[in-house]
């Protein structure tokens, strides 16, 4: 006989049960079958744990309840989180009529052909210039990453390694500045930028985004730089390498993982940023994606599937980056790096 692990065994057993059950009582909704499947799966997969000896123990009811709550929690939270994302995607594939006729249709109609399916996407690219907004958003985000790293790497190196007057002050003020609210900066920056003619310009956004992400970047990088063994640099100093040489030839090659995770974070912050782009951009020629979607929604007649198509476009890169580089990113998140 083939040896199956418990996971597959429980899935097979519970599906068989649900198929039988569904055959016998056919009028019940799908939810009922899904629920039965999960309950049975839950108990079967824990069958080793729920043996006679364990069940005799004092707190066995609580143990089962705890396990069951865990399963329920997994289902509940997966649903609560993924459902809005799913609806975003589904809505973007629908037509106006389909949306109004049956709001409870959660399926994607693949039979209507690719051109119909992606109609909303074609429209927002053609009539609402989304191609341009994607380019602007990319330029702003990538630009912010590059400038932030250019400023942050030397500064982080100095904070991590060198002794100078005001070092502790600098490293504590980094954290305080990081906590400081963006809404407080908006009005003075708006006035200063309008007088300097920096509003509605990509340069203006780049400056603000760089300044707001710098404290985080320095904080994360200096933590990593401190973990690099000092002996390497001491050898380099004996070789009469300048600080520029030390940074480019020793520090940067050794901290590629940290630098790339900082880069990804800064990219995500800049890509998602909304407040400053709302304040500084009022000319559609210089809109970023987020601002463009908000502008689109300002017109009450914009069909919602277009709005959702735009939302899918702005969300996909971020989620892709996040899922793909999750390992790097989660440790950084715990360092409190993404402000929100």
């Amino acid at each position, binding site marked *: 006989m083939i040896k199956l692990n418990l*996971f597959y065994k429980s899935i097979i057993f519970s599906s068989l049960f649900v198929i039988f059950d569904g055959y016998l009582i056919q009028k019940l909704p799908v939810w009922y079958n899904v629920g039965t499947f999960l309950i049975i799966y839950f108990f079967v997969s824990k069958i080793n744990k729920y043996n006679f000896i364990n069940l005799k123990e*004092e*707190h066995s009811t609580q143990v089962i*309840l*705890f396990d069951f709550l*865990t399963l329920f929690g*997994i289902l509940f939270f997966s649903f609560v*989180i*993924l459902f809005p*994302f799913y609806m*975003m995607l589904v809505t973007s594939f629908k037509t106006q009529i389909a*949306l*109004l006729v049956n*709001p*409870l249709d959660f399926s994607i109609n693949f039979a209507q052909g690719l051109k119909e399916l992606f109609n909303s996407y074609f429209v927002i690219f053609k009539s609402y210039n989304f191609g341009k907004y994607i380019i602007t958003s990319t330029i702003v985000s990538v630009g912010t990453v590059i400038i932030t790293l250019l*400023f*942050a790497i030397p*500064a982080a190196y*100095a904070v991590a390694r*060198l*002794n*100078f*007057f005001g*070092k502790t002050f600098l490293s504590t003020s980094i954290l305080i*500045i990081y*906590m400081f*609210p963006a*809404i*407080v*900066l*908006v*009005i*003075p920056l*708006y*006035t200063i930028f*309008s*007088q300097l003619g920096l509003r509605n310009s990509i340069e203006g956004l780049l400056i603000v985004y760089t*300044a*707001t992400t710098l404290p985080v970047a320095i904080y994360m990088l200096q933590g990593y730089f401190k973990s690099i063994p000092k002996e390497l640099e001491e050898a380099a100093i004996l070789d009469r390498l300048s*600080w520029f040489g030390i940074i480019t030839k020793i520090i940067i090659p050794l901290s590629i993982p940290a630098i790339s995770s900082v880069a990804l974070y800064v990219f995500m912050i800049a890509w998602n940023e*909304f*407040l400053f782009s709302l*304040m500084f951009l009022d000319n559609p020629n210089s809109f970023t994606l*987020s601002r463009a*979607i*908000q502008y689109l*929604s300002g017109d009450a007649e914009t069909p919602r599937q277009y709005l*959702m198509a735009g*939302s899918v476009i*702005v*969300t996909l890169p*971020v*989620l892709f980056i996040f899922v793909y580089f*999750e390992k790097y990113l*989660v440790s950084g*998140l*715990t360092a*409190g790096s*993404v402000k*929100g």
Partner: protein
Amino acid sequence: MNDTLANTEKKTAYILTLPAVLLVFAIILFPIFANVWISFKEVELKDIRIPEPRAKKIVKSIAEESSKIKILYKLRNSSLIQEIRDVSFQDNFPKNFEIVNLDPRCDYKNYNLKCEFGNWPAKYRENFQVIFETNDGSKIDKKKLKSIKPKLDGKSDNVLLNTNFTLKNFKKVLFDNEFIDLLLTTFYYTFFGTVGSIIFGILTAQMVNQKFYGRTFMRSVLLFPYVAPVVALAYTWELLLDPNSGTLNSLLINYQIIETPINLLGQKYIEISVLGFDFKLRLALTTVIMFEIWRYFPLAFLFILARLQAIPKELYEAADVDGASPFQKFFKITLPQITAVISILFMIRFIWNFNKFEDVFLLTGGASGTRTLPINVYQQGFAISDIGMGSAVSIVIVVLLLMFMFFYFKLLGKRVDEN
């Protein structure tokens, strides 16, 4: 030798940190001071634009006199409210141009027309006309003539730089009838959002800390709301909660839980009766808080999960030997171990929620009882276009935050001493 080495180290450090420090100073610290300055001034959005003298050059040929040309400058003051002083004007002409009529305010030397127009009041307009003649009778290239742009210069007061201060803005903010309501709304939003996200964070962290299939996947899914762009999420929620064709209302009506759709984001109050007690729930505010909890519990989740994974296993094993139930283990071991993280989280989330602008702005725009202080900054500054008022509100935010931090650290410091 040692001394010089330390000196070079210092110098290098300053060189390395200077660019970053300067940028942060210019964009973050300086605006905070500027905010204080502006908040004591009466400034409106329209005052911000610096008035400029402008001239539009129009070239007209004169009938039957091909060697003569008329040039009309439409002069104006770009500002509707401020005067410009000592306006000077300069324009260059080709090397064969002689002036026919010279305005008394002007001077023509070396084919360069210079004028001093004196002071221009607000909204000032003038049609200034000059006639030229070529001294060799050759034909005039109108396009080339038009392509030379005149230069204008003038001095004007910058409302932002003068020293007229007033307390009017703060009086208006603090003695406004709605100020208490504004504070309460902000407090509800911040407090319940913070507490809710921490509770959900504890639940999910406890959940993911168990062993089950697909645990790493679950961990990334739980972080989705936190990393996705707020614009996309807010509009998706709006779509789900829409009273006319939103998914939630349709579902509830379909299963006959409610009869008429509820406008979750547009209704200020809803009357609920529980056990015979009728009370009014602030509906739109509750929905906005729900969104906030949904979006920010992942941060609490991550922090608490990291802490949970660091709790030594021996503690639980010892509890098992003593025959503790799972709930006892949670309340007696897990919870005391994560209190430190929770108190840090409470502070971080409280501060950030207090300043949260985007979420409320995108969901309700501050309507139906969801106007928080940050929304008020925007509304005063840009909707009513009173920059000074907006600044004053943001100063109120900063002061409240500093007070919160002060009390928080005092309280926390005391508790640390007691332990």
